[in-house]
């Protein structure tokens, strides 16, 4: 963790000295994590990729204002979170008769997941795993934004409580209770899978 932070710090210092290669390295290091987080927040598709690009553009533009008290990880996820919130507000405003996101996105997601071979299970298990993935993705998209942000950052991106506190700007108790509520909601939604012991 410290080694990663040190490497990130040196990359940022190089970026602040106008080293373009250093920024490319940051992009290479974080693009899939940020994209995955955005896909889980707004649903996969062209929008998610555009928002990921916007995240890196905003990071690039503001790299000189970056303060070393935050980690690069936290900073990027904070930018991505704000961009997703803005995007969702915009979508809500523009489309008054919007089709529920999860229905539209679940189809796209199915296509994406079809491309990922998983040889760990037999075909029946694979089908069940695919179904479960779909169910989980839907459950995540259905969560209220505040709960979803916390569970994505902690359980999928593996960020610590303290980092999440900084990203969502909430005290520790709030982060813990949001995480509990999010996990509890997801658990209830996939309880039939849990009971059938996948």
């Amino acid at each position, binding site marked *: 963790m410290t080694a990663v932070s040190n490497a990130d710090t040196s990359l940022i210092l190089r970026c602040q000295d106008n080293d373009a290669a250093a920024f490319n390295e940051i*992009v290479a290091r974080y693009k899939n994590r940020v994209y*995955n987080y955005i896909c889980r927040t707004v649903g996969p598709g062209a929008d998610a990729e555009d928002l990921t690009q916007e995240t890196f553009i905003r990071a690039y533009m503001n790299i000189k204002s970056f303060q070393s008290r935050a980690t690069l990880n936290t900073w990027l996820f904070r930018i991505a979170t704000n961009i997703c919130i803005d995007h969702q507000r915009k979508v809500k405003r523009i489309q008054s008769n919007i089709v529920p996101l999860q229905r539209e996105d679940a189809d796209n997601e199915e296509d994406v997941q079809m491309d990922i071979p998983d040889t760990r299970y037999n075909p029946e298990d694979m089908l069940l795993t695919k179904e479960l*993935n779909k169910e989980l993705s839907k459950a995540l998209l259905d969560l209220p934004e505040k709960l979803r942000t916390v569970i994505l950052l902690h359980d999928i991106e593996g960020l610590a409580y303290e980092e999440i506190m900084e990203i969502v700007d909430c005290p520790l108790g709030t982060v813990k209770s949001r995480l509990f509520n999010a996990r509890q909601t997801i658990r209830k939604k996939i309880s039939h899978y849990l009971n059938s012991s996948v």
Partner: protein
Amino acid sequence: MKCDKIQPMLSAFIDNALSARDTWEVDRHLAECHECQRSLNEMKRTIKLLHDISAFEVSADFDAKLQTKLSELQPKPDRLMWIKGLSRMFRPRLLPAWGAASILGIVLVMMVFFNQKPIRTVNMNTFPATEANFVQQAKVQNMAFSAVNPLEDVSIANLSAHPSGQLGSNANASE
């Protein structure tokens, strides 16, 4: 502890984020409550499933597209330090504190304001050379002055602008 107190702690219990005492309480409760044990196991499995969920990856032309956009841009210069300081001072987490401080400030100002009023009244009584008295004196001077120089516009306001009483002495001189 009862189940309804233990259940909300299970999430933090899994992450080892409880205090030593709470961890002990949850451990003790779990040893004898099958319902909470089941909840704990289900939550652990949910977390594992979330952890193992398939990840999305960017398309092959992501880097090229990003490079095209970045080539037209330049990083913004560092913002001024005082803006940073201000934005940190007024971040949402501190807003309740600022609210409380503002209310306290308003109360203090009001207390000072209402405490001053009686002092002013006492001052007016103690020292007769105040505005009201001066205006009264000016009226008398105005009458005397206009009797001597009827064409000059000597209003009470003009007389009030000369608290030293020069006009009064002028009036005396012309008399």
